[in-house]
């Protein structure tokens, strides 16, 4: 159950890891290290999903974010010139800090303001099958539209970046 000692301890460890890594992403000097901390933060979030017994979402989180997105980001960092591979300070740090602080204030306010109810229901069982049913039966149109949108974005990216034939680079 969600109030077990083990679950609570696990939540605090995972939350501390995630928040700590997210802070390191902002503060660490080297961009590659920042990406690696980001991957660790993704894994921490996957752990929180497991605590919430959302096993499918947790595994997909690791697969897509810690696996694919982190690899893609490192690839992008590698393709930038070495001089730009710094997590250097910019003039925008003050407005960014204000914005982040405001978001934090809003989240804290909402979470205190909401009258949280503890649901009196059993734990979730297997979620993968239910998710599959939901995606391919009632929500099949949004699902397909999303995949078409992604396909369009991919084709668009190829069209934008492809060099003309004969224009030797």
């Amino acid at each position, binding site marked *: 159950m969600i109030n*077990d000692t*083990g679950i609570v301890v696990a939540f605090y460890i995972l939350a501390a890891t995630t928040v700590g890594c997210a802070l390191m992403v902002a503060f660490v000097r*080297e961009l*590659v*290290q920042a990406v*690696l901390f980001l*991957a660790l933060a993704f894994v921490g979030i996957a752990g929180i999903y497991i605590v919430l017994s959302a*096993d*499918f979402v947790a*595994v*997909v989180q*690791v*697969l897509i974010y*810690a*696996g*694919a997105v*982190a*690899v893609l980001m*490192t*690839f992008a960092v*590698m393709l930038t010139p070495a001089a730009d591979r710094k997590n250097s300070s910019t003039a925008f740090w003050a407005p960014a800090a204000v914005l982040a602080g405001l978001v934090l204030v809003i989240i804290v306010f909402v979470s205190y303001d909401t009258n949280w109810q503890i649901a009196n229901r059993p734990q979730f*069982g*297997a*979620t*993968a*099958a239910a998710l599959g049913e939901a995606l391919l039966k009632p929500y099949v149109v949004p699902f397909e539209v999303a995949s078409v949108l992604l396909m369009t974005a991919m084709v668009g990216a190829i069209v934008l970046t492809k060099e003309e034939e004969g224009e030797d680079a």
Partner: protein
Amino acid sequence: MIMALLTIITDNWWDIRDLSNLSHEIEKLIGDANGPAWLIYVVSGLLGAIGIVSFIGGVAVINIWVERRVVGRMQSRLGPNRLGPFGLLQPVADAIKLMQKEVLMPGTASGLIFTAAPIMFTVPGILLMAVLPWGRNMTLASLDVGVLFLLAASSLAALAVFMAGYSSDNKYALFGSMRVIAMLVSYEIPIVISLLGVVLFAGTMDLQGIVLFQEKYWAFMILLQPLAFFIYFISVSAELNRTPADIAEAESEIVGGYHTEYSGMKFGLFYAAELINAVVVSAIISTLFLGGWWAYKLDEIVPGWMIYIGKIYGVYFLFVWTRGTLPRFRIDQLLAFAWKWMTPMAILNLILVAAEVLVWDESGWSAGVMIPAFVVINGTLAIATVYAFMRLLAPKFERFPTALRFYSNIDVPSLPATADGAARAGTQTV
């Protein structure tokens, strides 16, 4: 009489033919003593973890010997045979040598990442072991999304390789890790799509469920999904960096690839992790395609985990075989193979499986008719499509070339112009 005795696997805790008896016994002991519920989880988890880690440790040591001996025999060499009977103590000597070596680190390397990389490279293999079913009642972590977990955990190894290559601050190491990522991005797609065929047939992502599906219909998944097996085997040997595809550490091109700068036990960890990963992938293949712990009637006599280990080593032999016989690909060949051959074939296979499952569900014909029909259809189609695609893409095979082969006929990117102004590719075609 003897057969009758053998078929009964007892429930006694000392009966190691089914190791789950032991953990049941411990659970009962805790339950009788009114121990807390979490203690049961901790104890059974610890038992399973110790079992898996010691299996992995043993495998990493023994397989050094197995691999070197088998490859040696395939290449008409003897392999290690000096130390101990049949050279069996060679891995121990290797390990002692590696431990004694000084662990060097380049001065410009980024220390934390450099040290973390070999550890992170070893972890996914051990993680993967946790979800594999070793017997009817023997799974450490029975996950409902087992297949997805396999994909997720194995994709983490690429990040570790990248960390190793980047933090070394060595151009060859960087090349190696860039190659790994290019390869992973390409080969992840056929791997996922080919496993989707298996999942679609079994109707579950639970690994134990997939084994039980094969038991229920008395057919190894390799019979139903020969093409998926073929694609998965090739793609995964690319992901494992094993020889037909070990361009990430191609000695003749980029020194040692991502582990160029590693020495001592840090290198040893990379070496061991590669062997562990090969065994883990063999275990995945034997679970998904070869029935796991189930083998027709054999699993009633022989304990499931023994059958499973036998199958793992059977598949592992295939990996060693490909390593011992096939030459190394070039990087562009390997990537082109993934995109032009594996991915279309995997998608074809997926469409075929989807159609078959639909027919099976809708028609209501019995499994006794459908399964043999699928075996025949998929087998012929697999052979036919592989042959057709090979004829389509590859140059025609000639034992005795009938015409001269020119450099320009082979698809090689042309070299930059030489000092005398003539392109070298051009001069050779004449």
